[in-house]
């Protein structure tokens, strides 16, 4: 590989592939960066178009902003926790199943992703409301005296969001677990580790980067969730995305809405950096042993 003529060829190939990617890079640049820059600019302007820091002062001094930030974090962290509790055992089961069974199960898990989020959210509404399928079933079984408050609250939003995020969490975790050499698990057993010890000391450690990836997807994705909390939260659960929409639709306050948007963007960037740092720190040792 040290041959200079080969290196030059390699560089030329790389340039060629880069040029193939150019349309996508330009599209992403225009379609994502331009609006973000526009919002950034907007957040520093008054309604009359003069430069100001007033928008940020306004949102940061408002109790509504802080309460919506708290709700946002609560929703994202609860969704992540539920995804872990439900998703890690599921991924473990898939990874230890035969390839055929696992592929079939994966298709079933992915199936919800093929339907619109709006359709699914209203589907949950039908299931969870007072006279919905869940409550009528529980009542007819005599398990509950009165309908459980499953929707138009935090619980409803959490159920809907977890349902949406679970497949996206399971995929990277499953991929990481499937790649674990079966002999490592057998070696741990032969050395005296029972099932739980083996899961804790070997499987979860080796699947850590997959779990971190899945967690990052869930957490960052849910920070900006709008439709699910809007429909299933019944106006009582107002994360930052809903706050932004209200600010625009009710007050037509583009400046404050843009400042809130930048706040959300900063939260996403901080969360992203944290996850990458965690992955980096834990992944150092594992590199292809």
């Amino acid at each position: 590989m040290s041959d200079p003529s080969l290196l030059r060829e390699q560089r030329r190939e790389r340039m060629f592939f880069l040029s193939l990617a150019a349309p996508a890079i330009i599209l992403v640049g225009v379609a994502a960066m331009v609006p973000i820059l526009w919002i950034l600019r907007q957040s520093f302007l008054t309604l009359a178009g003069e430069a100001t820091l007033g928008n940020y002062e306004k949102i940061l001094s408002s109790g509504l902003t802080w309460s919506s930030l708290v709700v946002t974090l609560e929703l994202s962290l609860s969704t992540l926790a539920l995804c872990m509790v439900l998703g890690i055992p599921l991924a473990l089961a898939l990874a230890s199943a035969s390839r055929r069974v696992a592929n079939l199960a994966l298709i079933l898990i992915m199936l919800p992703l093929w339907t619109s989020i709006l359709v699914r959210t209203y589907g949950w509404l039908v299931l969870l409301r007072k006279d919905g399928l869940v409550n009528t079933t529980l009542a007819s079984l005599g398990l509950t005296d009165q309908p459980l408050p499953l929707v138009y609250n935090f619980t409803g939003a959490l159920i809907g969001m977890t349902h949406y995020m679970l497949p996206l969490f399971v995929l990277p975790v499953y991929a990481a677990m499937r790649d674990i050499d079966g002999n490592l698990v057998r070696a741990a057993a032969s050395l005296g580790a029972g099932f739980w010890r083996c899961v804790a000391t070997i499987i979860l450690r080796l699947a850590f980067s997959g779990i971190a990836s899945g967690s990052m997807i869930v957490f960052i994705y849910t920070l900006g969730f709008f439709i699910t909390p809007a429909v299933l939260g019944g106006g009582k659960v107002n994360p930052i995305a809903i706050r932004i929409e209200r600010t625009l639709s009710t007050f037509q306050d583009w400046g404050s809405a843009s400042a809130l948007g930048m706040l959300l963007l900063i939260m996403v960037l901080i969360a992203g950096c944290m996850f990458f740092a965690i992955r980096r720190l834990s992944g150092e040792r594992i590199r292809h042993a």
Partner: protein
Amino acid sequence: MSPASLPISITDLRKSYGNYVALDDVTLDIAAGEFLTLLGPSGSGKTTLLMALAGFVRPERGALLVGGRDVTRLPPNKRDIGVVFQNYALFPHMSVWENVEYPLRLRGVPKAQARERAEAALRRMELSGFGARDIAALSGGQRQRVALARAIVFEPRVMLMDEPLSALDKNLREQMQFEIRKLHDDLGVTTIYVTHDQREALTMSDRIAVMNAGRIQHIDAPQEIYRRPKNRFVANFMGEANIFPVATLQGLGAGRLPREDLAMIRAENFELDPASLGDDRVEVTGRLVSKAFRGENWLLNLETVDGHQLMLSMTANRAAACGDFKIGDELRAYASSTHVHVLEEARTQ
């Protein structure tokens, strides 16, 4: 570190996957402190048998006794058996120390004491000073030693090894064969070793069990199994074997053998010069089909008049003339009667 070793008794062990019988009622007794090798081609059942002993394969029937205790249904983590895997199976997220301490920590050995014992095991494997390293930073041979250290550190009384040297290059492999045997002799632990390499089996073992099609074809000491294999499969698997009807042979020695039997003569037991042999010898004539110089020996392939193939191995310093032979030459090969082994299988037919 000298744990008492235990005998192993395997009775009528059976395992099948659908129509494929991996273990066909295997019965085998291994003495305490013995080094036994399971030798066979892939798919012969040798690895299945080892995995059943380790507890990873559930046999359909039969019994496994370790030191008189029935472990057939015991989960692998309760068996206290040291296992060395083909690809070492070292934990990539742990350092060398953490790998070797792992079985001790599971047994509740305090941290400091575990470190001490791990270090002693590493020292035995000549890996002092490697404890803090990552597994990724080790060479294949070093990983092999860490795997051995981890398997012996908790003083198991039985060791199982599944082709532990197959990933190493030839020189290192031959060196490790002696080291593993020495480790066994020092610890005195009952060892079952799986390999498909007959030379490795001959080098290391007290006894060899040759397996094929889920059965033990022949079990005996290395010299015995090489010189007097029970059947054609064992004869061919253990080395270059020439197998043909006794009727093909001439000479004084051939007269005493029943003519319908099958005779086996190892390639290296032929001579081209009868002077070095006594009168009690056999002879066979054939045409030279091909020849090859292989450094320490010449290989000569002959075909007899009745169509049997014959392979002769002549040590190079004994066969200076081999270079002058031409394809098509008629050669006469001799072997001492003591080197003619009659296969049992022909008699039973």
